[in-house]
């Protein structure tokens, strides 16, 4: 579904992605973790070309992103993206936030789009908030709406860029529950997160990055029990017991 082959990216002199080789199969849930500045957000943002790559090959859903003939808007419509800062449209109601893209891009009738949006809101537990504006919602609720908005395009892939990092601790659970439900429904997902509980329980594979390099790729159990790389050991130690 997603295949990185020798991908490089630079921000001026900074080598943010260094020879990335990664394959995500259909239905797979891959967690990307690593210290801040390791390039994990950049990695996920290249998949729908919010960040273009400089070298190598990236094929998503059979489309080659370096091919100028690839219709990037069409590809983006097939990929849901959930941001750390939610990025809901503040001037639109929850309902309009969700129906905007299906109506404008897929040409779905407003009535049908509204029905689908209600079903999605029910799925994320927010059907009663369809009339609300984003600022009237808590962070956790906003993020669940953002997930519903991404799902409204019926994407083949869902990308999550630190979806719980901007949330108060008591709201993290509600968002992770929605993501877990989504993973169990067979969605192909790439999740950048520090939520190791989610990684252990839900993901099929964990990718550990540092300084733009993928240092380790492993099954969750293996990654937590026997991280091979020193940097990963140190990272896990800090993350699981931050007081030491």
């Amino acid at each position: 579904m997603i295949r990185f082959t020798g991908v490089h990216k630079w921000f001026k002199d900074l080598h943010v992605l260094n020879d990335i080789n990664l394959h995500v199969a259909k239905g797979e849930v891959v967690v990307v973790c690593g210290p801040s500045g390791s390039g994990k957000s950049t990695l996920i943002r290249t998949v729908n070309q919010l960040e273009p790559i400089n070298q190598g090959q990236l094929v998503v859903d059979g489309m080659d992103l370096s091919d100028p003939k690839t219709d990037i808007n069409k590809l983006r419509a097939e990929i849901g993206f959930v941001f750390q800062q939610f990025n809901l449209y503040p001037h639109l109601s929850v309902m309009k936030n969700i129906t905007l893209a299906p109506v404008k891009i897929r040409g779905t009738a407003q009535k049908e789009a509204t029905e689908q949006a209600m079903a999605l809101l029910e799925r994320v537990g927010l059907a009663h908030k369809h009339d609300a504006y984003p600022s009237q919602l808590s962070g956790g609720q906003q993020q669940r709406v953002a997930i519903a908005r991404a799902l409204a395009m019926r994407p083949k892939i869902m990308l999550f860029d630190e979806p719980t990092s901007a949330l108060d601790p008591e709201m993290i659970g509600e968002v992770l529950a929605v993501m877990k439900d989504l993973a169990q429904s067979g969605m192909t997902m790439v999740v950048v997160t520090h939520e190791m509980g989610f990684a252990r329980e839900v993901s099929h594979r964990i990718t550990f990055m540092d300084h733009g390099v993928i240092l380790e790729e492993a099954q969750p159990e293996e990654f937590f029990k026997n991280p091979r790389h020193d940097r990963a050991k140190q990272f896990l130690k800090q993350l699981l017991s931050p007081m030491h």
Partner: protein
Amino acid sequence: MGEFLNFQVIADNFVYFMIGRFPHGPLGGLGLTIYLAVVSCILSFFGGLILGILSIVKNPVIRYPVVLFINTVRGMPLLMVIFWMYFLMPALMGKTVPESRTVIAGLTLFTSAYMSQIVRAGIEGIPKGQTEAGISTGLKHWQVMLYIVLPQGLRNMIPSFVNQFVSLIKDTSLAFIVGVSELTHVATQINNRTMAYPTEIFIFIAFVYFVLCYAFTSLSRWLERRLAWRKAI
């Protein structure tokens, strides 16, 4: 009022102040001032919107000429722009053009250039995450602009728009210089005819300009409140 200020001259010429020789002749006075302001205001809103958007497009072939044009106009006195239109438009179009139209063209050109910078700042003030959210659902750039960025940006631009339009209302008085019989022109006519009451006449038109601008400012505050949505965190 007595001997010092005699506002009888205002009462005697009130209709002329308000509408000029209308309906027996062309519209003048306050009526023409409002007409010039409203038409120029509407035209320069769209002019500013178009120039503002074009001044931030990626394609340099479009952007550079637009930015050059904006900076040129912003570097000229309005009076000169009005003169230019007054002499240029008939020459360019090969026929006589009513003075009021050349004034509208001058005001529109000038105000559009300023408006474009308000539009640019308003667009650039919307967080990048909004655009990213839009394009990541597959919306094209123009759709993101139309449905996501502009509706939010325009609301933020209202106070600056109002400033610009209040200036525009007052700037219509420059039409006086090319003989368009708007409020200031009418006032000088009456002043020349009656000779004795310049203070009264110019206090009166200052008051009229003030009321006009104040009414417009109040209207826009009402509009701002109506368009308000609760700000996101």
